[in-house]
C-alpha cells in the first residue's frame, strides 16, 4: 500500500547494493505489491537469492514464527550513491519472534483493529475494502516500518507478509497469509493482473461499504438496512465496531444478500436484496451435470467465498436461495471480479 502513482522503485540489498526496480502490480485488495528488480545490463542472467515459501494453509495456532523488517519508519540515516540520497534504516534487519495466536477472517480483523488504533497499512486496506482470504494474528512485535516484511516459520520458509500492528493491544499484530501473496504473484506473471472468481453479492459490510453508501447518499435501501437496527449513513461512522455475535449473525448460513453489484453474475441471474442464501452446487464429480447431492451448504459466507475463489471462471453454479419463505435454485455463471477502481469489496 502507499504506492499511489509510483512506477519506479529501488531495492537496497543486504550488502548495500542499490538496484533499480519496477512495480509490476499493486493488488490493493489485499495490500500486496509485486516489484521486479530490473535486469542488470552487465549480467542479464544474474540470479538473486530468494526466500522459500511455505503453504500457509498448513500453519497452525501456537506455531513459532519470526518477523524480519526495518522497524521505526523514520529512524533512518541518509547515505549517498550516484548523486542520489537514499535512506537507510538505523534498525534495519531486525528479527522479532512470537507465535501464531490465531488465524482470523477479515471482518473480525476489522472489528479487532477498530478496538485499537491500528498502525501500519490497515487504513489503506480499508480504503479499498479488505479482500484477504484470512490473516495471521501473531504476537511477534510488528512496528511501523515492518510492513511488507516477511513472517517466517522455524524452518526459514515465508508464511506471511507483515502488515499491521496495534498500538493499543500489545502482542496483536497482523500478517497476510503467503498463499494470497503467491496468487497475486502467479496471476501477475500469467495475466498482468489478479483474477478472482466472483458472483457480485454483498454479504458483509466493511468500512469502505459504509463510507461508500454514505457518500452516495443511498440512505434508503442502503446495504446497511439489512443489519438489524443497523446504523445508516454517517451515523455508521460512530458505530462501526460490531460485536462478535453480530458479525457471526451476518455471515452464518443462511446469510442475507445485502446488496448486488451492478452488471455482476448475481444481477444477471436475478438475485434480489433480502434473499437468504442456503447452499451452492456445482459439478463436483465432473460428470457434466449438477446432481442434487452436489448442492451443499457452507458453514458461513467466508467458506462460500473460499469455494468460489477456488473455482475457475465460467463455472456453472446452482445457488439455493430462500425468498419469502420459498426455496429456489438459481443457475448462474462465475465471472471475474472487477478491479479496485470499480470497488467490489465485501462481496462474494
Amino acid at each position, binding site marked *: 500500500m502507499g504506492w499511489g502513482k509510483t512506477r519506479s522503485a529501488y531495492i537496497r540489498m543486504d550488502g548495500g547494493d542499490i538496484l533499480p526496480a519496477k512495480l509490476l502490480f499493486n493488488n490493493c485488495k489485499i495490500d500486496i505489491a509485486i516489484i521486479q528488480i530490473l535486469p542488470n545490463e552487465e549480467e542479464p542472467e544474474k540470479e538473486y537469492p530468494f526466500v522459500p515459501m511455505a503453504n500457509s494453509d498448513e500453519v497452525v495456532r501456537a506455531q513459532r514464527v519470526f518477523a524480519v523488517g526495518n522497524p521505526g*519508519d523514520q529512524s533512518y540515516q541518509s547515505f549517498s550513491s550516484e548523486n542520489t540520497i537514499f535512506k537507510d534504516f538505523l534498525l*534495519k534487519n*531486525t*528479527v522479532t519472534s512470537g507465535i501464531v495466536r490465531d488465524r482470523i477472517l477479515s471482518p473480525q480483523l476489522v472489528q479487532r483493529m477498530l478496538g485499537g488504533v491500528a498502525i501500519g497499512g490497515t487504513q489503506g486496506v480499508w480504503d479499498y475494502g479488505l479482500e484477504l482470504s484470512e490473516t495471521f494474528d501473531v504476537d511477534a512485535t510488528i512496528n511501523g516500518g515492518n510492513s511488507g516484511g516477511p513472517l517466517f516459520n522455524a524452518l526459514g520458509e515465508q508464511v506471511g507478509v507483515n502488515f499491521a500492528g496495534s498500538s493499543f493491544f500489545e502482542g496483536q499484530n497482523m500478517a497476510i497469509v503467503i498463499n494470497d501473496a503467491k496468487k497475486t504473484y502467479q496471476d501477475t506473471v500469467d495475466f498482468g493482473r489478479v483474477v478472482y472468481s466472483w458472483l457480485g453479492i454483498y454479504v458483509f459490510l466493511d468500512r469502505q461499504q459504509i463510507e461508500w453508501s454514505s457518500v452516495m447518499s443511498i440512505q434508503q435501501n442502503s446495504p446497511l438496512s439489512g443489519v438489524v437496527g443497523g446504523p445508516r449513513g454517517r451515523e455508521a461512522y460512530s458505530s462501526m465496531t460490531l460485536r462478535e455475535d453480530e458479525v457471526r449473525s451476518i455471515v452464518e448460513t443462511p446469510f442475507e444478500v445485502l446488496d448486488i453489484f451492478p452488471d455482476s453474475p448475481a444481477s444477471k441471474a436475478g438475485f434480489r436484496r433480502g434473499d437468504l442464501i442456503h447452499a451452492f452446487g456445482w459439478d463436483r464429480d465432473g460428470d457434466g451435470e449438477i446432481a442434487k447431492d452436489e448442492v451443499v451448504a457452507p458453514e458461513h459466507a467466508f467458506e462460500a467465498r473460499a469455494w468460489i475463489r477456488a473455482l475457475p471462471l465460467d463455472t456453472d453454479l446452482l445457488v439455493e436461495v430462500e425468498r419469502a419463505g420459498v426455496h429456489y435454485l438459481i443457475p448462474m455463471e462465475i465471472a471475474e471480479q472487477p478491479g479496485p477502481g470499480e470497488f467490489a469489496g465485501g462481496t462474494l
Partner: protein
Amino acid sequence: MTFLSLLLLLTSPNVVVPLEIDVDNLPPVVAVANVGPSLVSVEIIETKYGISLSGALTRVIGTTGFSGALITPDGYVVTTASNLEGVRRIAISLEGNRWPARLVDRDTFNNIGLIKITGDAPFFNPIGVADSDLLSQGMSVLAVGKPIGEELAASLGVVSAIRDYFLPSGYLIPKMIQTDAHAFSFNRGGPLVDMDGKMVGMTAFSVQENTSTPVYLATSVLDLNFALPSNLVIDTAEKMMQGQTLFHPWIGIQPTILQERYALFAGIPDAYMGRSGILVQTVDANSPASQQGLGAGDILLGLRRTRVMATGREENSEEFVVSPLGLASWIRASEPKDTLTLILLREGQVEEVSLRPQDRPDNALPGTV
C-alpha cells in the same frame, strides 16, 4: 580437520564423541534456574529531609531498586551506570539476605557500573558468562531482572540484531545486542542470558522510552531493546577491579556524510574519489582535532593508524571510511599511544595531520567522535 581424520577419530574405539547440547533449544526454566542464584536486587538508599505538617524537620529514607548480576565469588556486581548517579548508600539483596555495598567505579560512556559487596559476606555464586561475539541473530535470549524486590522476572525473546550503536553524544558502542525480550525500566542493569543461563549482555535501554536515542520515531514502537555485549561489560569490569583508568578514545570532530555532488565541486583527487565521504561539520574547541587546526569544512580522505607494538616495531594500518559510523568505530578501536593520521582535503590541498586520541571528556560537544 580433514574428513578422513574425522572418520578415523569416530571409528577408533577409545574416543568418546561428546554429545552436543543444543543450547538454543533448552527450555527457559533451565536458564532461570541457572541464573537465579547470581541475580541480585540493587537498592539505592537515599535520605531526604522535609518539613512535616507540624512544621518539624523530618528525615525520610527512600529506596529505589533495580537489577544487577554477580560476576565474581567475592561479591562484585555489574549494573548500568545510569542507575548509580550520585549514590551514597547501596544495599544488595540476594536470597533473603541484605548486604551493604560500595560503588567501585562507573563508566558513564559505556553505561557500566561496578559495585562491591562489603562486610562479612560469604562466597557467592557468580553468573556464567558466554562470549557475546558468538551470538547470532535469531538466537533465543532471556532478559532477567528483579524488578520488584526479590522476585525474579524473566522475559523471552530473540536476538533481533547485533549492531554498532551510535549514541547521541557521538559515542559509539560496538556490537550492541538488540532484542525483543521485554525489558522493563527496573530490569535495566539486569543480565541478558542465553538459554543455558549464561550472561551474553546487560540490558541497557529501550528505544521507545529513551527519547535521547538517535532514533526519532513518529509512532510509538514496542520491543526495541538494547543490551551491552557481555565481552564489553566483563572487560570494563575487570579494568575497574584492577583500578585501571578507562580510555574512551576521542578526537573531537563531528562528522557528517559528504554527498557526492558536493565531492565533485570540492576537487577531490582522483585517487580518493568515491572511496571517502566524510565532511567535518564542527570541531570541539578543546579537542586534539582543534589543537591540530582542524576546522569545519575539511574533508576526510583517508585514515592511518600507527601503533608501536610491544617489540618496538611500528605498525601502520590505513583505511578509507565512507560513513560517520565507520569513522566512529575506527576511532573507537584506538589505544592511548596510537598516532592517528588524518589525510585531509583543505582548500583544494591534500594535507596530513597527526594526532593522539584523548580520553573523552564529560563535557564533550554532542555528536563528536
